[in-house]
């Protein structure tokens, strides 16, 4: 039907062109043939006269011309009207007109009728724009279903970049939102979410302010209000380093988007902690909003909308109640009034783990932060504060990223190494005189007890942490090395230590984990490559290493995993994820325990070391009392203290313990930076957290409280933290 109509129309146009041609030809013929037609003859005769050369002005003469039938095209013709002399030229212009109209009609016919479909599609594509709407992230729970991270719907006031030049609008925004003029102006100039994207003026505006802006939209040109979900943390800084924080995706992050993840400019993504590690799981699916947008990018009409779907929920192995105790213990010890320096130490970490499957029950690090500070973008002043040396870097997760000398906690591992190579056994005894120069180098090395321990076996050596016993063991390792003419590897001791997971990442489901360091001759050469004379490996290096001093570095998490292996014989991979559940509460991912390796240690050697560890706690009143506060008998615990020396700083206090001694279930590793003596400073913290674990296990401990983030303030440490060692 349509085709027929179009054919009809085109026919009409052709007819019109034909009519035009007809008139042209007709006038030509008439002029040429000049048929006599009554009175017209008279007029024609006048025509001829007017066509006489007279510079356009017709001069009228009564003399009629005779030649009424001259040749039509003859230019010399003086007959007829002037148009007759140029008839062929008329035809030329007529042909031009026909060509113009014909070509245009043909072209438009092909565009508007033949290929109209594809143009219509393109017009629709121009007309409609699909905008992705942000999806709420999944929630985060602890092992018992306590909600640790939830979502809150907020009204966000956004402004186009162009508003930065509009003083009136900034003035009005400032008045309505109650934010100082220059802050509004700064926020609009902030390009961190992309040069073209809208800038957040107020991340969480009040309902009535938003209503005012909506009602007076003319006065707020370029300002829009968006409903967004932001993270909310019911317990403040509780487990902040585990949970991590979220933020607007950066341009660098957009370049490395994982294959199965869709990230749009302006989206919120996990930046640290499990928010970052399980970002794929937590992120929801964008909603799609089909809108009509004009060339200025203004939304004219919303055509259709599909809702965004929330991401999966993550359930952690963390026990919020134990975590709360761990966070509190550190905060109370280090910054009793919220100011670092008024307590003991300047930072610290506690890691509590289930030794049977590697589940992390608590992981605390101090100083800490409240992830709420990051919702809607962290304020510049807070960021600056957290980046200063005086704040001791609250964003650093010391449990996995803080590296410290292992100190005497290393002795459990080095004892096992000595037993394996026969440099120690259940009979062998050494003599401690308080200081030692087994290499006859003239450089004396001290035992922590300068008075000396006298005649001493391995059991007592571990229990009282006698350094001389271990110097002797290290000396045996040194001389047995190939370079010294012996038969075993020069790095035999290091290899035994490495079997407990040191010098490598534990593989916990967090990013930013440090591997630590076990110094070797090779490492020393590399390290001193610019000063080759210092790169020479000496016996003293090994005697330092054997007691966890010198260049060896470990993380609190590594020590927890290492002691779990000493307690059970299995080196586990630590993990925070219990399971991932979808929005219908069905588990989609469940974490399976993973034994990384089984160190080849003889059972009798384990037994010997474990027995000694069982007696470490009872020697320290601080530790005994701390356990008693939670109703725990110290003799059901295996533990080790440690006091690490750091050049120019206070000692690092260590306390690692596992429980119950006979059938281990939990391990707690505690480390206090510049804290001082291991037993006195770190011991009670570790004992309290272990007590909390045991209470929680019985179901006696369920309370979770709000934890404050670090104030970022500090004063000079009141105690030196470098009193005489006590381990």
């Amino acid at each position, binding site marked *: 039907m349509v085709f027929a109509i179009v054919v009809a129309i085109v026919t009409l146009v052709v007819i019109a062109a034909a009519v035009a041609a007809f008139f042209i030809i007709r006038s030509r013929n008439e002029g040429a043939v000049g048929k006599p037609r009554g009175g017209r003859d008279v007029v024609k005769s006048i025509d001829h006269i007017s066509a006489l050369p007279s510079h*356009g002005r017709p001069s*009228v003469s009564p003399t009629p011309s005779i030649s009424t039938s001259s040749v039509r095209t003859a230019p010399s013709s003086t007959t007829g009207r002037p148009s007759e002399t140029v008839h062929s030229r008329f035809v030329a212009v007529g042909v031009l007109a026909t060509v113009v109209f014909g070509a245009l009609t043909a072209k*438009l016919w092909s565009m508007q009728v033949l290929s109209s479909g594809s143009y219509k599609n393109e017009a629709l594509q121009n007309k409609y724009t699909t905008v992705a709407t942000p999806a709420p992230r999944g929630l985060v729970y602890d092992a018992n279903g306590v909600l640790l991270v939830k979502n809150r719907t907020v009204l966000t006031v956004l402004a186009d970049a162009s508003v930065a030049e509009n003083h009136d609008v900034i003035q009005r925004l400032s008045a309505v939102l109650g934010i100082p003029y220059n802050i509004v102006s700064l926020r609009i100039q902030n390009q961190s979410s992309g040069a073209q994207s809208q800038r957040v003026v107020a991340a969480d505006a009040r309902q009535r302010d938003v209503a005012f802006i909506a009602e007076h939209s003319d006065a707020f040109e370029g300002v829009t209000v968006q409903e967004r979900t932001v993270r909310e943390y019911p317990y403040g800084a509780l487990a902040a380093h585990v949970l991590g924080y979220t933020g607007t995706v950066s341009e660098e992050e957009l370049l490395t988007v994982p294959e199965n993840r869709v990230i749009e400019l302006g989206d919120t993504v996990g930046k640290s902690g499990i928010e970052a590690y399980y970002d794929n799981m937590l992120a929801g699916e964008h909603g799609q909003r089909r809108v009509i947008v004009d060339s200025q990018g203004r939304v004219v009409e919303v055509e259709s909308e599909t809702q965004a779907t929330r991401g999966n929920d993550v359930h952690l192995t963390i026990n919020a109640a134990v975590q709360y105790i761990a966070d509190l213990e550190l905060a109370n010890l280090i910054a009793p009034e919220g100011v670092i320096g008024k307590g003991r130490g300047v930072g610290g970490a506690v890691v509590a783990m289930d030794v049977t499957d590697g589940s992390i029950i608590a992981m605390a690090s101090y100083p800490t932060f409240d992830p709420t500070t990051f919702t809607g973008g962290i304020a510049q002043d807070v960021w600056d504060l957290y980046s200063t040396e005086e704040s001791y870097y609250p964003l650093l997760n010391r449990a996995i990223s803080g590296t410290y000398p292992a100190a005497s906690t290393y002795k459990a591992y080095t004892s096992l190494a000595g037993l394996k190579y026969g440099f120690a056994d259940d009979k062998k005894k050494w003599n401690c005189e308080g200081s030692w120069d087994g290499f006859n180098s003239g450089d004396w090395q001290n035992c922590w007890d300068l008075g000396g321990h006298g005649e001493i076996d391995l059991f007592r050596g571990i229990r009282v942490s006698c350094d001389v016993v271990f110097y002797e063991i290290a000396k045996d390792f040194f001389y047995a090395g190939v370079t010294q003419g012996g038969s075993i590897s020069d790095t035999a001791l290091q290899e035994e230590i490495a079997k407990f997971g040191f010098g490598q990442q534990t593989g916990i489901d967090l990013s930013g984990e440090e591997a630590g360091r076990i110094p070797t001759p090779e490492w020393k050469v590399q390290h001193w490559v610019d000063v080759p004379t210092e790169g020479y490996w000496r016996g003293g290096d090994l005697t330092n290493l054997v007691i966890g001093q010198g260049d060896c570095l470990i993380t609190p998490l590594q020590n927890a995993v290492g002691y779990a292996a000493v307690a059970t014989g299995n080196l586990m991979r630590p993990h925070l994820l219990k399971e991932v559940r979808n929005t219908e509460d069905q588990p989609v991912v469940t974490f399976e325990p993973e034994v990384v390796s089984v160190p080849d240690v003889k059972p009798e050697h384990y037994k010997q070391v474990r027995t000694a560890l069982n007696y470490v706690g009872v020697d320290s009143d601080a530790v005994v009392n701390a356990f008693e506060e939670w109703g725990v008998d110290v003799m059901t615990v295996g533990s080790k203290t440690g006091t690490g020396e750091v050049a120019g700083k206070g000692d690092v206090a260590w306390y690692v313990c596992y429980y119950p001694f006979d059938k281990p279930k939990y391990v707690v590793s505690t480390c206090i930076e510049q804290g001082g003596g291991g037993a006195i400073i770190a011991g009670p913290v570790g004992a309290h957290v272990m007590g909390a674990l045991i209470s929680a296990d019985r179901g006696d401990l369920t309370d979770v409280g709000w934890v404050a983030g670090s104030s970022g303030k500090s004063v000079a440490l009141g105690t030196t933290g470098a009193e005489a060692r006590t381990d």
Partner: protein
Amino acid sequence: MPEISNITTGNPISPGGNRSSRRGGLPSINLPFIVVIALLVLYGLVVVYSAVSTDEDYSFTRQLAGVGIGLVVMAVIWAFDYRRLSDYTAVFLIINVVLILSPHLPLIGVNTMGATSWIKIGPLPQLQPGEFAKITVILLDASIMARYQGRLDDLTEYLKAVGMMLVPFVCIMTQPDLGTGLVYLFIAAVALVVGGANVRYLIITLVICVLMVVAVFLIDEVIKNASGEYKLLKQYQRDRLLVFMNQGSTDLTDEGYNLQQAMIAIGSGGLFGQGYMQGSQHALGILPEAPTDFIFCVLAEELGFFGVLALLVLYAALVIIGFRIANASSDMFGVLIVMCILGMWLFHILENIGMTCGLMPITGIPLPFMSYGTSFMIMNFALLGFMGSVWAHGMENTRRTSYATPH
């Protein structure tokens, strides 16, 4: 006006047709002509109304005012006997030069986007004298060729005529405004062809023109190699040409984007269009310069192929009526005036519609009676006035009045 014709005629046997029309009380009113003009102008206003409705920078009232002034101008010129102008070739030449060069004058000249094409006098709106000069260019070219009475075989005379016709072109290229310059050249070409210039001369002139265009490109290339940049053709002119040559290319410059959006607007109109005031391409501001240079896209988008055909039929009717008026004219000057006017409109129609659908390269030439713009509207009404004048005064000694008047 009837008195004048009476006196000039001074003939007792004056045409009966003329007389009869005078008896009807409406002397010299060509009804089909008036109807076609009315339809075209109304159609244009309807389309412009839709085009300006979404853009605050344009005012429909101003366009209406342009039509109002244009009607007055048309009536005055219609009543005026064009034959009085036939001897003023030199005057037209001077007026042309003054008009076209006036934007170069200090105080009133306005330079926008690299071209000195506008003047601003006191509180008057900004005007484009090159637009009004189209009238005097037509009168100049017609008066030059009229004196040869349809036959020009003398080479010296031919060269003299061509030389005079080239003066406005040379002047406009100092602004520079190539688009308007091409219109002047086309008017001159129509005047030469219709004016009876020797066919051999015409062909040789055409060949020389083609060679000169080629030469311009070659010399420009040499200049670029020597100095590092093109001097003769401006970059935007090159871009437009490149866009025209590489249609459908995905690597789009601004010009290419404009053309693509224009073609989408036209094509998406389909047979019946998206509906009046419903065109998404211009309503959303995607279509560039919708009310002015790309007005045709608005029409094609909203009213479809039928709307487009209606416009083309109206234009064709105007051209046919023009032919009839020229054919009936009693003197060469009138013939040439009408034919030059038709030629100019044809060029505008071809170039404007052609550029929007990819047949011609993009230039800023408006569509007669459709495009937004007061200067252009008044100028077109003036041209209609001249056509009317030729019809009313040019046939006074002919019997062919009946030809164009209804019975």
